């Protein structure tokens, strides 16, 4: 393959990576497209889904496709922030030693960091992660470590409630998207996953994805070029503002929630950062669709994964979040017109 030069040239390898990921994880084309958008929008992604659905495999495959080094840690209730930075040990001669932890081990070559079951970690760990995600740096050993190409992927366990710590709103807001994965619906996909031997060994499966298909060091400049090149018209800006207003004051748009009295269910709508990330993701979506301008459909395609996890509900309704928020998102999209 010739080396891509223009923005349009980069679309082919991006779609090729998507095609490879679709071969690794069957029946999840929408989640894979969203993850690809998050990568090219340089946004961190939170994956959510039942156990055994392929979240980890998908993230490992994406990390391989992007190249660079990949860090990983499992969230546990006794995990401390320092466990991400370093770990201590006694060597064979009984001499104590300190090695960089999974976050620091690869330095600036770290392209992806996968935090498995993030909601099992304590808030102290979330706090450290917030800084890494927001500033792409961390202080350790009396110096600053920078991760200019880092993307953080995390998944959270929604099944168990014991010994888990719900991500605070500030931490959720750092994630560009929360991508939901559901079981494959196609019978053929299910049969393939169950019967084809290639799905038995995930490490071997992931090796089918060409390593470094997209140069992770080029992603920052490429993402900036996408944001500069894809046009967002005045009317589209008004549409995005209307969507933002609807998340804060749904009653102004005639939106009522079925199981919530009035509009009191919402304590806080989408943040300005969230709306900025929404437009970034919409631009990437338009670019992947080979368009030069953002359409309302681009915004709609990423509205739920970018905005849903940012809405803060009244604690009374938080227990029904999984039903209320999708309904609210759907009603907002059906209430705001453009043009």
């Amino acid at each position, binding site marked *: 393959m010739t080396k891509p030069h223009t923005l349009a040239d980069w679309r082919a390898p991006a779609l090729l990576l998507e095609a490879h990921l679709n071969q690794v994880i069957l029946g999840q084309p929408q989640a894979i497209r969203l993850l690809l958008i998050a990568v090219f929008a340089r946004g961190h992604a939170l994956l959510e889904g039942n156990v055994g659905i392929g979240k980890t495999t998908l993230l490992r495959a994406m990390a391989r496709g992007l190249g660079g080094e990949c860090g990983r840690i499992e969230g546990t209730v006794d995990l401390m922030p320092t466990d991400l930075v370093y770990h201590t040990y006694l060597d064979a001669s009984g001499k104590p030693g300190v090695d960089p932890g999974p976050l620091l081990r690869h330095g600036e070559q770290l392209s992806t960091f996968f935090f498995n079951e993030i909601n099992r970690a304590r808030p102290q760990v979330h706090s450290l992660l917030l800084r890494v995600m927001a500033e792409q740096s961390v202080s350790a050993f009396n110096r600053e470590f920078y991760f200019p190409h880092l993307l953080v992927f995390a998944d959270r366990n929604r099944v168990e409630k014991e010994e888990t710590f719900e991500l605070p709103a500030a931490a959720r807001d750092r994630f560009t998207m929360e991508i939901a994965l559901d079981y494959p619906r196609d019978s053929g996909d299910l049969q393939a996953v169950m019967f084809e031997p290639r799905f038995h060994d995930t490490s071997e499966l992931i090796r089918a994805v060409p390593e470094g298909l997209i140069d992770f060091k080029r992603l920052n400049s490429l993402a900036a070029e996408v944001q500069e090149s894809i*046009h967002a*018209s*005045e*009317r*589209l800006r008004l549409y995005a503002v209307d969507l933002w207003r609807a998340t804060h004051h749904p009653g102004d748009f005639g939106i009522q929630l079925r199981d919530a009295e009035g509009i009191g269910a919402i304590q806080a709508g989408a943040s300005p950062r969230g709306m900025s990330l929404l437009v970034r993701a919409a631009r990437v979506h338009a670019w992947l669709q080979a368009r*030069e*301008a*953002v*359409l*309302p*459909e681009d915004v*709609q395609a990423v509205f739920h994964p970018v905005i849903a996890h940012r809405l803060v509900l009244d604690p009374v309704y938080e227990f029904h979040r999984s039903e209320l928020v999708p309904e609210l998102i759907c009603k907002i999209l*059906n*209430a*705001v*017109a*453009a*043009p």
Partner: protein
Amino acid sequence: MRTPALVLALLPLPVSAATETPPVLIDAPRPFGYVIGDRVPLAAEFVLPAGCEPLPAALPQPGRVDYWLELRSAVLQPLGSGRFRLERVYQTFFAPLEVKTLTIRAVSIAYRCQGVSQPLPIPAWNFTMAPIRPVAVGKGHDDSYMRPDRPPEPPSLARHLGPLSGWSLIAVACGLTLAWLNGWLPRSRRRQAFAAVFRWLRAELRQPLAGPRLLEAYARVHQAFNATYGKPLFATKMDDFVSAHPSWGQIRPQIEAFFQASYAVHFGSDAGRSPADYPPERLLELATLCRQRERRA
């Protein structure tokens, strides 16, 4: 009791039957007892020679005869065998202070024999009229004796009421139908959204559409689609829209062309300008098609 008075008008004897004037027999009611406002029927009968016929144009025309007398009608009736009867109805407005003899003047009609017109005089007729009140009202009379004139009764409309009611109902039904089809009724606005857009576009397209008015034109068509769909309609929702409104599937290419043009106008890098392949007149064509579907819905 009516006492007909017969008056025979004797005219000079003619030289021949064709040229001699036929005698006229006046058939009149009583010649007395009339008061102001009474009608006086006055008939005249005559026999014309064979081959002769009266001239209708020479009959007296209804209207004012004198300052006190008015001819209400004049009708000539054939009685057979050359006999004719001319029935005139006069109405007198004379207000005598005492009993007075008045004269309805002679009139002349005409008849034609063998292409030659001949006059036929109808003789005058005298009658007497009497006052309806004394000259001076005495002290013994109260105010009720002098009554104001009875106001004229309006003409009866009874026979017109039936047809009038029927036509009025038809007119109201037509008006309501027209208003419904054009979306003038408040409740029909949602269903007739494209009728309003059609009217607006037809008026606006008399001048070239550009700038903010062009954007408004597109926006109005979008709003009509949204009203029809019940929620905002986007290009990607076209399958759902057509499945909900199957009759609109026939014009789906036109709708999709509109959305493509609209997205270029609103969201494209050259936003604000109508695409070259989609002049504003196509908006009116689309509105016409949509209005037809809307009416059938």
